[in-house]
């Protein structure tokens, strides 16, 4: 089991990969982000993007999926997230792209009132051309190994 105490600042982890299909892009966008450049390949060709692109919220959802799977592999005791400092959609994501998740620990600190700790991390999705398509800085909560006193990180 991986607890809060096991996260070290500077530690970098690969989260795994996902190849995104046109069908997935269309299904997500039709339900949640029905803008023509996400839902209509022909309209997308005529848009400033020059072709169908995934909703940024879809790319983030896939990043979450890879994070959850990585947590499961590591048996990490994640208990949710209070939020994100930032999210930037840096490059369009297109059908056939293979996105690989990568995360780096930026800071850790314990909760003062609960037996958990916080991990601030940068998470990126990188395409097959080695371009970062989305980058977030967010906070994840993990259970602490011991609920007793801890030194402030």
């Amino acid at each position: 089991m991986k607890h809060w105490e096991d996260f070290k600042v500077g530690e970098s982890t690969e989260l795994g990969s996902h190849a995104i299909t046109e069908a997935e892009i269309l299904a997500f966008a039709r339900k949640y982000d029905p803008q023509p450049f996400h839902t209509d390949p022909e309209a997308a060709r005529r848009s400033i993007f020059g072709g169908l692109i995934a909703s940024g919220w879809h790319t983030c959802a896939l990043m979450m999926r890879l994070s959850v799977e990585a947590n499961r592999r590591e048996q990490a005791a994640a208990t949710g997230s209070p939020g994100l400092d930032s999210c930037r959609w840096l490059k369009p994501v297109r059908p056939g792209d293979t996105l690989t998740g990568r995360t780096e620990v930026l800071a850790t600190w314990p909760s003062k009132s609960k037996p958990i700790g916080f991990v601030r991390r940068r998470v990126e999705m990188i395409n097959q051309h080695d371009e970062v398509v989305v980058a977030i800085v967010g906070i994840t909560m993990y259970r602490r190994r011991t609920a007793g006193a801890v030194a402030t990180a």
Partner: protein
Amino acid sequence: MTYFEDVAVGDIMRFGRYEVTQEEIVEYARQFDPQPFHLDEEAGRQSMFGGLIASGWHTGAMFIRMVVEHMTPVHATTGAMGFDDLKWVKPVRPGDVLSVESEVKEKVAGRRPDRGTVKIESRIENQRGEVVMSLVSLVIYLRR
């Protein structure tokens, strides 16, 4: 159509009505966020959340659906660069009805003559008027 020039700091927009169902919470979670408290009522009850709750990213997806339905048709926007300061404040549960209140916080002209960036703070509220999520979006507006 509302263009970059038409947006003023302090403008407030209220829009959207999204009924959250258990079926949709579980469907989203299966695809994108398969943690027990998003998938299963019983597991949710045993968690610190005391019941099934929506993935925070699902709340974000429901937010963008309301934006695309109500704002995009009348605002000359061409996507967003991203967002800052997203907070998942309260759990979203089956049966909740969400709506949005957005406030223009800042206009950034930038270097491009045909567009500008507008920082818009949005608060997603439930049927009791409680803020469940908030964020500051960096929305790209076209100029007239």
